[in-house]
């Protein structure tokens, strides 16, 4: 068995890592257009779903999205005016925050007067499958429909995500139940929603 010197090992690993870095960069850059196109389609599908259009076909999603919405920059952040499936006008706001393992984000569709939630859609990069990942499920997202951002005294409280059964002084109109088993991801969504800014 031949013995390998330290110098050999050092050069070997350095060369290997350099080649790999180059290779991965090329692959990632080369596939970037396809990947970004897919991400745009997914975004359109998600926002349309939150606005009440149900599941849209991959081929039609972008066309439909461009038809019913227009970009507008609320406070310099990404936002859209959208015509919801029920005919009313709405506003789409982008929210982002921190989950347990990585970033979480979403789009909140609000009524024209910015007071009521018409729909939400959440996404994440690496939350736990079966637990934190459930923020993407219909059951969780549909609970936000009809919730109000302001309490009975007109104060802005956003829609809170709180453990069920806990009495925290927040009226039912301003809260949804957190996902059991996904405490930290739910807290991340709660914190993300609290930072929602609606200057109208």
């Amino acid at each position, binding site marked *: 068995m031949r013995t390998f010197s330290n110098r050999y*090992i050092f050069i070997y*690993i350095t060369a290997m890592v350099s080649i790999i870095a180059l290779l*991965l960069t090329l692959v990632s850059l080369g596939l970037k257009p396809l990947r970004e196109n897919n991400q745009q389609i*997914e975004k359109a599908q998600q926002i349309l779903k939150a606005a009440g259009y149900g599941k849209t076909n991959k081929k039609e999603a972008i066309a439909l999205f461009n038809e019913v919405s227009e970009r507008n920059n609320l406070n310099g952040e990404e936002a859209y005016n959208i015509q919801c499936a029920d005919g009313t006008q709405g506003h789409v706001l982008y929210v982002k925050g921190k989950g347990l393992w990585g970033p979480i984000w979403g789009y909140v569709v609000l009524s024209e007067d910015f007071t009521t939630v018409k729909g939400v859609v959440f996404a994440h990069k690496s939350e736990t499958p*079966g637990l934190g990942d459930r923020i993407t499920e219909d059951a969780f997202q549909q609970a936000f429909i009809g919730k109000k951002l302001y309490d009975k005294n007109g104060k802005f409280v956003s829609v809170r995500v709180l453990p069920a059964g806990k009495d925290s002084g927040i009226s039912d109109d301003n809260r949804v139940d957190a996902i059991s088993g996904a405490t930290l991801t739910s807290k991340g969504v709660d914190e993300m929603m609290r930072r929602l800014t609606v200057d109208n």
Partner: protein
Amino acid sequence: MKSYLGPLNRDNPILTQTLGVCSALAVTAQLKPAVVMALSVTVVCAISNLIISLIRNTIPPRVRIIVQLLVVSTLVIMVDQVLQATFYDVSKMLSVFVGLIITNCIIMGRLEGFALSHTPGASLVDGLMNGLGYGLVLVVVAIFRELLGSGTLWNHQLIPSSFYESGYLNNGLMILPPMALILVGGLVWIQQGTRKSSEK
């Protein structure tokens, strides 16, 4: 040639070697992600076996695990990039489990136990066969789970609506991960039970 077919049944990585079971539970609720996962693992296993076998005489023994990890991680990242560019919605379904292919014991197991000490040709075949053996189990489990749990196969409705009208219900338990474990157990039972007693 007979020994090459070993991983398909007699030495099946999941049923006999009890490797790679975790991802088998997570991605088999539907047939489509199961097939994509199986193909991904097969590709990574085969190509990493080939590469490690080709460079086996140049790898310093002190860093061989590191080198194996480098090769497997690079291949997995490339597979992940390709999936995001082509089968985007399936890559979302597989989520963290594509990255976890790196930790799949089948792959490291075959690299250590075969590729380091065999020729590239034999290693490539060994990687392919183990990947396919793994894939076979995934596909069988997924067919049961999707058909009985959702009435569909590859997202096409197979159970006719007349069945539902007569009172047939989808078996919700099938979609939950514990059922996958029970099915794998059942497959192990069948496989062990049908072995010739001389081989036991």
